[in-house]
Structures are given as structure tokens and as C-alpha cells.
């Protein structure tokens, strides 16, 4: 059948015909090959225009149609329908855009006509190769997904639900309602936003067809119109919906106070919270971030933030119990812990770290361990033995006893405590503190036998025979390393630091009498500090600390060094002992040393001391106390069942499970790690206890989770207004009084100091997991272990109603927001005016202390902050004029008519129903309207009338002069802008953003609810700034769009999809990995690739890559594109046209 083309060019009034000589184009086209009829007409899209095409198809037997008019995005479907009505397959139609691409963009008429001809020729040449395509229909899933449950989302969901379709309503906050529910009143009718909003919220949650998914986000959308699948991430609320009764007891006891987002940060809320009393769902929600950095930094992972918050609430017993979940010796660690937690404390970004260790001590000091409750213990019949009662052994005893095991401690020395008792001097850790805490552990039912030396009095075999299922070796590192210099071993008066401290601590008779003696302590660690300071307390007249490197390299803690200096300990740095000098009586009379200088760095990066030749000198001394390190005493090691040890004598244990070479023997603490801190020993004790528990139950140790993942970064932001506050300091006794006294050097915090210190905690983790809420919840609705869940739903269509963000005016520093406490944004003003807001609905201003205290006498309201501003947003935010009018009214009504209100506007835009009337009413109420944008808000007064006020400096453009208006309060009508995550959300749903950042509609006038993705609609302020009536109307419109698809149940989809010619395909499979939808499969039998038409979307990735040309997109085949191009080029080369 020969090809007969009908060509039509539209005048579009004068839109096209004003530039393009349409009759000339029609004449030109009429002369082209295959063209049977060529016409021009005023409005091709009008009914007569379409009728003309239909008639010509019949009269001239046309089998192809080309229309040159506007963009095919506007009217392609119109003309395709006309063809279909006349019996012509709609794909035998082609359109040339001679308006958007020619007449509107080409100023010269000759040029425009020429270009129109070339585009017409291109379309005509292309349409020759068109084939009729079958229309494809797919079923539409009846359910609808609505994203965002502000007023738009709620309205759309209710409309759809009312038509008996199921709606999944996804809201990212903990409550539905959106911005509208934050407002006080709504203009112009002054309806209370809550009064008209909360019934909708209740309708939503009660409607059987609406499945509300609050605190959830859509993470992925796949599929196509009518057949979408959405993946939804449900964030954990940590409170069970349906069980929570909303009573609020949990919030009453929660110690963590955080700024309330709902109140725009003007008020506060607890970590367990509900946005506002009428929130829907009523279920509370716990705000958890990653665990605070202090918790992660603590080797024992003590819940630092938790106990600090409990101390703040004066719940000392609970605080100590929380500490004791991870640290069985709170008073001890509260004194001697090197507090690695404080190094990570984020308060140091503001001023300095919170005094965590001292607060722990404070809490422990408030509690009587003799009466502290023992947790209920479920006994079992297994028993374990612990060798050594240092911090590691005591932790194992404490943990396993709580799990119900019979625990027996064996201790070589006369009393329990290990190094805590025998190594740490009393002035740092009083024995009474240790006794009380060990007493508590014994009270739990742990038994102990002292003066039993392992290996000598009892062996591993004995323990096994006595029925101990597992043994923990926490024997510590009790030996002092030798210096290895001549005279060290044989001279009396050389006493290693460990023994020296032990004897001093136990006030043993063999303690050397140092009264009036000169003592040299060798070493630079904490033990050396202890030895030196104890020597001073025992009456030594001079104590010299000899260290071979410089002070910077000393391993001792800085405060120890500082306190030692205060006690007149002499430091001799860069000095290396080489010989002990013996007096004739065999006692020490001096220490020969040489001077050193820092040399090359060694393995640990510290510079190795080099001896300076000829620098020998003698330190005059009566006693020498070496403190250069400790080692493990392994003399107990039983030949019958020897434990594997390292060359340094430490016990070798699996670092995860702390199991030794003998399966039922576990080991930890200094005995395994070498000398380390108390808190490291406690951490090791926990690890061993966990492993031993599994071992005793006969379970595999592989399942042991050694490290709780605390590696967090997602912490609460440090509040902007966080002002530096000095860290509380422990009061230390005067150095003069310390000299000969072993009483504790520092007294703990006073209660006031402790509370002030707890206030400095930034609550990095949000919820502190103190579990107070769990205890308070009668309904048992709280579950701190809840985790994120995901859910997949099938829907036919999607409505996006994600709303807007209010622009943060801080960067516009001239308006003083953030600098002056009484400059507020519009949303903040709404909260101040709202009955559920921070002021209970009273319009108050902040006083010097930042509290809302007294009403303003004058207020300036500034329009267009960030809107209609080429430096911010060029668009008008549309609602601010009316909102500002509402504020003027509310101030006059609530504060009183005497209040002076100044409204600075550029233009008043009161366009809606009842808006202009409301404007008039506000004018009559006495608000002073000033036409002019405020240039600056300042507090720099130039006269007594301005003193203490904020001054709005503006030009009154009606008077033509500059004015200064002193006011008490300023309200900035900040711009409405697109959501910060609009780009990423848009990408999930295939919706583009406009230049203003809002979601882009398909057409600004004719498709304001549609998007580039079919079946995805937009409603409300996510499309552009809108007031409530427009938002609700658009939501109902979007609901209607979704319903029209859902109720018909079928939809026509693009026939433009890929096809692989089986006769050409060589089976190279190049296309298969390229397909973004995995729509191409390889047919193994025929050895060719095949397109699954149900999945293909027609992007043509395959066609672009196919080497043989077998893969082609229907309607966009190579011959179509080539023909279009050739037609175009022919017209350029032969402007006169040819047949």
C-alpha cells in the first residue's frame, strides 16, 4: 500500500504564525514525497482542527499524519486520539514542535520559517518508517501509597480510603499532622489549627482502610504505573504501638532533656517523648542516637551517660546500680580509673570534658554498700574457682555469681583486693572504700579463702577434683622487674616498688623506716609516683625520682606528676642509674648515674636515651626503690598441667574468649595483658565471665560477641547556644598538710558541684538507657532492644505529600536571628502563640536569662525573609503576608490592643477567599503597615527611646525616607523552601526538581499533580509554597488522580519498548548486563537474547549498545532516527523542497 501522509501546521493564534509563515511551510511540505495533503489551520488542537484530520484520513485515504504545532509533550496524545478515532493506529503519527523550538525562540521570521520547514521535513521523512504498534494495557493495583502525613497526605489518604481503597500512609516523624498542627490559628478565619487538624488525624488513624506507618521512610520504589513495589523502613520507636497507653509516666521519669523539634527548639522534651499531647499515634517514642562516645571509650562499656543523668536526678542508688552493671567496684574506679571516657567526651568541643570519674565517685559515695539491694539470683548447681582477687577476679566472681554459679575465690595474701589493696596507696584509694565494695560482692554469696597460694597450697588438679567446672586465673603481675645494675641484688636498702607499696599499705612491721632518710625512686610510671609519694609520707627527708628520659615521655599521668611536685618530690630527668653504691655496712649509700640525651626514636616512637660519656655522678641516698615495670610470677605453674605462657611469663589466652591452653581454665587482667589499668582488668573479667558461662553450659565459644558495636558517629548535635561552663574540680588537701598523712587526698564533689557538673553532659546518645522508663511503664510497652524493620508493599499509584522546610534565617545575619534572643521565625512565633507550646500560649519575650517572662510592648513583623530575594529564593512564599496579618491580630488580641505592631511589607498579597477582608480588619485593629523591607535589625541604640530595644532600620517607600523603629520583639516571615532531602526523595520516586528545588510537576498548568513518572502524583507544598486551602484542594485532586487509575483497574502503558530481532541477534549477550531493569534474558535453546516486555521500560540501553543492530526500541528504531535526520538535512540543503 502506498504511503499517504497528511501534514498540518498550526497557527496557534499568532504564537506560531506570528513568526513562521505557515502557508509557506504547508506549501513546502505539500511538495515533499508521500504527502497527499498539507494544510495550515488556526488551532489544530481545537475540535474543528481535530475533525479536519479525521475527515482527511477518510477522504484522502491517509495512512500517516504529521502535525507541526506545539511540543508533543502537550498535544501528542490529543492528535494520536484523533487518528485513533479515524481508524488510524496512533503510532502512525508524528509531531514537529514548531512553537517551543521555533517561533518562540527564533526572532527572525525567515530563519523561523526555514527551521520550521526543516523540522516538518524531518517529521514527514520519519513517519514514512512508522509502524502501527499494539496498545498495551496493564492491571492497576488498587492500593495507594501516600508519602507524608501532613494535611495534604492526610486529606489524600482519607479521600482514597473513603472510596474503599487501601492506603499506606508513610510518615517520617513520630506523629502525623505536619506543619499545620504546629500552627496556632489559621488565617483568615482564625480557626484553631489543632481544632480542625486533630479530628483529621484521628480519622486517619481510625480508618480501617488506612494503614498508618509513622516513624517510617520509603527507601525504594520499583515497578511501573499500576504495579509499584515500595520498600519501607520502619524506624524503631522502642515503644510498642498498641500496648503503650500514652499515660506519660515514662517521660516523667526520663532524665534526658533535649530540645523539642515540635517547639522549634524553644522548649524541651525528654528522650522518651510524644511531639505534643494530641499526637497520633499516641505511642511514645525514644530518641536514640548511637551510644555516647564515653560509653564506647570505656573498656568495660559502662553506661556513662546513663549514670550521669541519674545523678542529675539525685537517683544515686539507681546510678550506682547502673554503674555496677558493668563496673562492680564503682567507688574504686571512681578514684583510680584513668578515665579514657573523658578523652572522648564531646563536651571538650565546647570547653572541657565532663568530670566523669569524679561523678562516678560521687555517686558511689552516696550509697551504703552494706544495705544496697542484692539482685535476685537464680541459683544453678555449677561452681567455679577464681585464683586471685584483683579487679579481674572480682569482676568474674561478680558476673558469674549473678548468673547463679557457686563462686569461690582463692587469694594468696591475707586480704582480698589484689593490687587495689596492696599496690594503690591509701591516700588515693582508702581501704574502707575497697572493703565496702568487696563486702557487697561477698554478700552476693561469693565465698573466699585467703592465704592460699596457688601452686603451693592448691593445684589445678585439686580444683578439678573438688568439682570446679572452670577456673579463672587473675593472678596479676606481682613481680617487679630488676634494673640489672651492679649492687642491686646484694645491697640492703634496695627494695622493689611493688613490695615497698605492699608493705606500706599493710603497715607491715618490715616496712622500712624512712624517717629522715634520702630515697631514690627509679622509673617514670604511675607506680614510681606512688612509691615516691608513699616514701615522702613515711617521713623521707628527700625523695628523688630518677628517670632516663624527659618528662614528656613519662608514662605517669599528668595529675600524678603535678601532685608529686606539689609534695616536693625532686625529678631528675635524663638520668640513667648504672651502679648501686654500698656503704661498708652493706647498706646503700648512693646511686651512681650517668646523664643521657634523647637519641633516635625506637619501636614505640619514643626517643631512646643515649649515654653522655663522662657524665657520671652520684645521687646521695639511703634507700633505692626501683619501679621500672612488673612481670607475672609464674612459679606456681604446675608441671602436671602447665599453662602456656609467653616469653615474658604472661599467660597466653585467646584474645576473644580469654580461654587458655587448658580448656576449662580462663585467664585475664595483668596476668595476660601485662601491667595495665584497673578498668582494663574489669573489661577482661567481663569477657572471661561471658565465655566461662557459655563453656559451663556446654555451648560453643564461637558465638561469643566480644565487642558490642559502639563505633558510632551519629550523635546529637551540640546545641548552638551551648555556652562554656567551667568543669567542677575536686578539692585537694593542701600539699603542706599531705606530707605525712595517708588520708585521702581529695574529697569528693559536694552535691551542688556534682549536679552542676551533670548539667554539662551533652547527652550525645539521646536516650541514656538508664531504664527508668522501663521501670515506670505499667503497660510493659517499652523495649529498648527493638530494631529497625522493613516492609514491602505493592501499590498501583503513589502520592508524594512531603511538605516544606522553613528557611533558616541565620545566614541572613542582618536580621539578627540567632544573635538577638527576641528575633523569632514565623514557625517559632506559632509555637509561642500555641496553647501547647513552650509558653502555654502566652506571647512572651525572652529575658536576659533566656526565659520567656514578659509580654512585648512592641513587635515588628518582617515579610519576605529569603523570599522574593535574588540572593535567596526568587519566588514568593505565598503564605507569609497572610500569616503576618494573623500574627498582628494575635498580638493585638493576646497581648492587648495597646501593643504597637509594625508590619513591614513589600507588597500585600491577599489573594484568597476572605483574605482581603482579613487585611482590612487588621488595618482597623491599629497595626501600622509600613511599605518597605527592613535592612537591618540592630541593638545599637542612638537615643534613650531605643535603649534596650531592637531597632528595625528600613526605608518607608511610601514616605520615601529612612526610619528607625524600636521594638521588643521581631518576627521574621522566613521563606518556605523545599525539603532538604527533596533531591534524594525525588530520586527514589523518579521525580525531578524544579529550579526552585521543589518537585517538578509534569506541566505547570495542565499537569500540576502529575510528575515525569507515570502513576506518581504530588500534592501540597512539596510542589511549591501553598496555603492550607490550596494544599487540601491539591491533595484531593491527587487522590482523584490515583483513584481514577485504581477504580478503572487497568491502564494503557507505552508501547515504546525494546525488541530484539531474533533473526539478527548473534547471542553476544552484551545487552544483558546493560539493562537497568534486568528485562533481558538469554534463551539458551535459541542462543539469542529476549526482552521481557512486562519489565522493559524502553530506555534503549540495549539498542545503543547492540553491535548487530538486533536490539531496537520500537518507534525509536535506527531507521526512524536516520530518516528524521536525513529529512532535516535534505531540507537544509534544498530549502525549496523536492518531490
Amino acid at each position, binding site marked *: 500500500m502506498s504511503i499517504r501522509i497528511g501534514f498540518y501546521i498550526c497557527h496557534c493564534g499568532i504564537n506560531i504564525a506570528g513568526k513562521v509563515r505557515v502557508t509557506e511551510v504547508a506549501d513546502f511540505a505539500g511538495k515533499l514525497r508521500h504527502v497527499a495533503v498539507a494544510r495550515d489551520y488556526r488551532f489544530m488542537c481545537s475540535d474543528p482542527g481535530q475533525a479536519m484530520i479525521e475527515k482527511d484520513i477518510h477522504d484522502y485515504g491517509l495512512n500517516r499524519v504529521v502535525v507541526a504545532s506545539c*511540543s*508533543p*509533550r502537550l498535544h501528542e496524545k490529543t492528535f494520536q486520539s484523533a487518528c485513533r478515532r479515524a481508524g488510524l493506529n496512533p503510532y502512525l503519527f508524528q509531531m514537529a*514542535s514548531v*512553537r*517551543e*523550538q*521555533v517561533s*518562540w*525562540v*527564533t*526572532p*527572525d521570521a525567515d*530563519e*523561523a520559517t*526555514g*527551521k520550521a520547514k*526543516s*523540522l516538518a521535513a*524531518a517529521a514527514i521523512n520519519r513517519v514514512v518508517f512508522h509502524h502501527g504498534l499494539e496498545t498495551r494495557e496493564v492491571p492497576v493495583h488498587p492500593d495507594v501509597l501516600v508519602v507524608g502525613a501532613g494535611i495534604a497526605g492526610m486529606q489524600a489518604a482519607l479521600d482514597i480510603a473513603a472510596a474503599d481503597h487501601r492506603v499506606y500512609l508513610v510518615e517520617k516523624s513520630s506523629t502525623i499532622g505536619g506543619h499545620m498542627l504546629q500552627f496556632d490559628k489559621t488565617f483568615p478565619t482564625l480557626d484553631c489549627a489543632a481544632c480542625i487538624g486533630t479530628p483529621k488525624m484521628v480519622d486517619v488513624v481510625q480508618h480501617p482502610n488506612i494503614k498508618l506507618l509513622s516513624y517510617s521512610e520509603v527507601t525504594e520504589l520499583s515497578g511501573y504505573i499500576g504495579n509499584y513495589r515500595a520498600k519501607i523502613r520502619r524506624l524503631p520507636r522502642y515503644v510498642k504501638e498498641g500496648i503503650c497507653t500514652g499515660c506519660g509516666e515514662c517521660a516523667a521519669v526520663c532524665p534526658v532533656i533535649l530540645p523539642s523539634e515540635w517547639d522549634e527548639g524553644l522548649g524541651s522534651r525528654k528522650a522518651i517523648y510524644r511531639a505534643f499531647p494530641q499526637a497520633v499515634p499516641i505511642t511514645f517514642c525514644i530518641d536514640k542516637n548511637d551510644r555516647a562516645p564515653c560509653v564506647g571509650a570505656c573498656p568495660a562499656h559502662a553506661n556513662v551517660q546513663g549514670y550521669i543523668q541519674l545523678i542529675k536526678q539525685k537517683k544515686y542508688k539507681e546510678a550506682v546500680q547502673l554503674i555496677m552493671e558493668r563496673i562492680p567496684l564503682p567507688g574504686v574506679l571512681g578514684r583510680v580509673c584513668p578515665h579514657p571516657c573523658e578523652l572522648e567526651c564531646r563536651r571538650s568541643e565546647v570547653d572541657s570534658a565532663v568530670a566523669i570519674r569524679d561523678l562516678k565517685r560521687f555517686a558511689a559515695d552516696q550509697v551504703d554498700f552494706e544495705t544496697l539491694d542484692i539482685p535476685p539470683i537464680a541459683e544453678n548447681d555449677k561452681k567455679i574457682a577464681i585464683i586471685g582477687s584483683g579487679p579481674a577476679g572480682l569482676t568474674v566472681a561478680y558476673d558469674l555469681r549473678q548468673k547463679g554459679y557457686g563462686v569461690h575465690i582463692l587469694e594468696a595474701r591475707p586480704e582480698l583486693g589484689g593490687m587495689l589493696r596492696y599496690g594503690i596507696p591509701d591516700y588515693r584509694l582508702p581501704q574502707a572504700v575497697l572493703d565496702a565494695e568487696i563486702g557487697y560482692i561477698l554478700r552476693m554469696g561469693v565465698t573466699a579463702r585467703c592465704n592460699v597460694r596457688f601452686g603451693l597450697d592448691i593445684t589445678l588438679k585439686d580444683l578439678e577434683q573438688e568439682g570446679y567446672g572452670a577456673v579463672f586465673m587473675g593472678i596479676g603481675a606481682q613481680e617487679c622487674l630488676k634494673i640489672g645494675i651492679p649492687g642491686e641484688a646484694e645491697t640492703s636498702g634496695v627494695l622493689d616498688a611493688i613490695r615497698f607499696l605492699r608493705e606500706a599499705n599493710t603497715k607491715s612491721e618490715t616496712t622500712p623506716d624512712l624517717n629522715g632518710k634520702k630515697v631514690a625512686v627509679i622509673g617514670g610510671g604511675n607506680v614510681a609516683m606512688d612509691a615516691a609519694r608513699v616514701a615522702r609520707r613515711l617521713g623521707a627527708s628527700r625523695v628523688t625520682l630518677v628517670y632516663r628520659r624527659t618528662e614528656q615521655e613519662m608514662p605517669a599521668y599528668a595529675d600524678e606528676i603535678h601532685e608529686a611536685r606539689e609534695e616536693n618530690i625532686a625529678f631528675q630527668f635524663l638520668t640513667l642509674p648504672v651502679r648501686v653504691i654500698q656503704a661498708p655496712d652493706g647498706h646503700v649509700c648512693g646511686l651512681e648515674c650517668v646523664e643521657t640525651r634523647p637519641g633516635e626514636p625506637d619501636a614505640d616512637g619514643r626517643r631512646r636515651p643515649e649515654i653522655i660519656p663522662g657524665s657520671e655522678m652520684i645521687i646521695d641516698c639511703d634507700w633505692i626503690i626501683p619501679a621500672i615495670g612488673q612481670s607475672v610470677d609464674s612459679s606456681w605453674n604446675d608441671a602436671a598441667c602447665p599453662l602456656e605462657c609467653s616469653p615474658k611469663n604472661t599467660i597466653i589466652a585467646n584474645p576473644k574468649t580469654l580461654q587458655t591452653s587448658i580448656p576449662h581454665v580462663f585467664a585475664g587482667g595483668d596476668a595476660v595483658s601485662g601491667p595495665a589499668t584497673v578498668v582494663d582488668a574489669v573489661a577482661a573479667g567481663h569477657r572471661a565471665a561471658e565465655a566461662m558461662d557459655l563453656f559451663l553450659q556446654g555451648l560453643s565459644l564461637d558465638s561469643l560477641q566480644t565487642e558490642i558495636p559502639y563505633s558510632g558517629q551519629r550523635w546529637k548535635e551540640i546545641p548552638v547556644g551551648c555556652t562554656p561552663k567551667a568543669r567542677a574540680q575536686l578539692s585537694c588537701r593542701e600539699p603542706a598538710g599531705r606530707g605525712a598523712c595517708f588520708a585521702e587526698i581529695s574529697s569528693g564533689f559536694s552535691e551542688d558541684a556534682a549536679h552542676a557538673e551533670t548539667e554539662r553532659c551533652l547527652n550525645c546518645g539521646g536516650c541514656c538507657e538508664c531504664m527508668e522508663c522501663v521501670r515506670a511503664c505499667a503497660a510493659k510497652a517499652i523495649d529498648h532492644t527493638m530494631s529497625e524493620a522493613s516492609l514491602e508493599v505493592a501499590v498501583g499509584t503513589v502520592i508524594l505529600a512531603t511538605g516544606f522546610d522553613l528557611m533558616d534565617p541565620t545566614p541572613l545575619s542582618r536580621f539578627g536571628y540567632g544573635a538577638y534572643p527576641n528575633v523569632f521565625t514565623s514557625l517559632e512565633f506559632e509555637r509561642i502563640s500555641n496553647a501547647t507550646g513552650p509558653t502555654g500560649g502566652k506571647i512572651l519575650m525572652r529575658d536576659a536569662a533566656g526565659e520567656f517572662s514578659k509580654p512585648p510592648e512592641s513587635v515588628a513583623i518582617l515579610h519576605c525573609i529569603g523570599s522574593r530575594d535574588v540572593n535567596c529564593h526568587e519566588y514568593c512564599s505565598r503564605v507569609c503576608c497572610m500569616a503576618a496579618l494573623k500574627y498582628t491580630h494575635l498580638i493585638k488580641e493576646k497581648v492587648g490592643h495597646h501593643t504597637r505592631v509594625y508590619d513591614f511589607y513589600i507588597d500585600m498579597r491577599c489573594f484568597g477567599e476572605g483574605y482581603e477582608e482579613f487585611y482590612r480588619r487588621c488595618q482597623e485593629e491599629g497595626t501600622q503597615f509600613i511599605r518597605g523591607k527592613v535592612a537591618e535589625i540592630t541593638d545599637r541604640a542612638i537615643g534613650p527611646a531605643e535603649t534596650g530595644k531592637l531597632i528595625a532600620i528600613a526605608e518607608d517607600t511610601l514616605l520615601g525616607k529612612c526610619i528607625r523603629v524600636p521594638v521588643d520583639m521581631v518576627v521574621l516571615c522566613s521563606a518556605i523552601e523545599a525539603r532538604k532531602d527533596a533531591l534524594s526523595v525525588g*530520586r527514589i520516586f*523518579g521525580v*525531578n*526538581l*524544579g*529550579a526552585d528545588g521543589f518537585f*517538578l510537576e509534569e506541566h505547570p498548568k495542565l499537569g500540576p499533580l502529575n510528575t*515525569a*513518572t507515570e502513576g506518581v502524583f504530588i500534592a501540597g507544598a512539596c510542589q511549591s509554597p501553598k496555603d492550607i486551602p490550596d494544599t487540601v484542594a491539591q491533595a484531593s485532586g491527587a487522590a482523584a488522580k490515583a483513584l481514577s487509575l485504581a477504580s478503572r483497574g487497568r491502564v494503557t502503558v507505552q508501547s*515504546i519498548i525494546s525488541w530484539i530481532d531474533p533473526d539478527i541477534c548473534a547471542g553476544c549477550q552484551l545487552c544483558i548486563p*546493560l539493562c*537497568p*531493569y534486568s528485562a533481558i534474558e538469554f534463551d539458551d535453546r535459541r542462543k539469542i537474547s529476549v526482552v521481557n516486555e512486562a519489565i522493559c*521500560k*524502553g*530506555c*534503549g*540501553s540495549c*539498542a*545503543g*549498545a*547492540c553491535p548487530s543492530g538486533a536490539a531496537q*526500541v520500537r518507534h*525509536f528504531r*535506527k531507521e526512524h*532516527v*536516520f530518516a*528524521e*535526520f*536525513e529529512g*532535516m*538535512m535534505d531540507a*537544509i*540543503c534544498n530549502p525549496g523542497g523536492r518531490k
Partner: protein
Amino acid sequence: MEAFEPAIVAFVCNWCTYTAADLAGTSRLSYPKSVRLIRVMCTGMVDPQYVLKALLEGADAVLVSGCHPGDCHYINGNFKARRRIKLLKEILPRFGFEPERLRLTWIGASDGIQFAEIMQKMVAQIQAIGPSKAGRMAA
């Protein structure tokens, strides 16, 4: 001497650059008539043959333009185009064409102003290079 009137063919994707061209039209932003658009569904379907054919048949330059990275209506078609255009530019000199005669841009649906600006600049650039010496028109 009067600047020559280059013939520039632009293969533009339906979702972004074609829409931007519509927006440029609606906003009455004029640009030289020598740019002519051929609509494709996605830049990912632009076969290298399209470009070569256009240049050989007389176009002085070819523009391929699609959605911004990450915005592709078909997930990642624009990235495929980017790879192809990169390779194509390398082999163009063997056909006697300067690589500057082929250009790839991202012009989003709301970038009407950018569309008109890029068209103006591109025409000026091609005018500076001069007419294609290897295409049909030169023969």
C-alpha cells in the same frame, strides 16, 4: 566575512533536555536556529552510529544531552551515554572530525535558561572551528 551558519543536531532525552527546551521556548529564550533537536527516550539509546551518521551526512556538530547524573529516568542511561561519548570522541579524528564537534551535556528539566545558553555557546564554538571538512557538505 559573515559567520557561517552551522548545522547542529542535538540528540536529547525526552525527560530532561527536551523538557528544558520546551521550557526555554515557553520562557521565550532565543537561541540560534541552527540547533535542531531529535528526541530520543534516553541518551543511553544513542547509538554511536547516530553520531557518526549525523557528522558524515553534513552536520557540523552533534550534541548529546540528558539528565543530570543521578536523575536519569531510567536509572543510569546517561552514564552509558557518557562512556560511549568518551570513546567516540577518541575515534572521531580517524574520520577526519575534530573531537570538539561532539559534545555531551546534562541539562535538567528545569534548566531552560541553561539550555538556551549552552546552545548559544555551542554555536559560537562551532563557528570558531569552521564548517566540517569531512562531512557530506564538504565533499
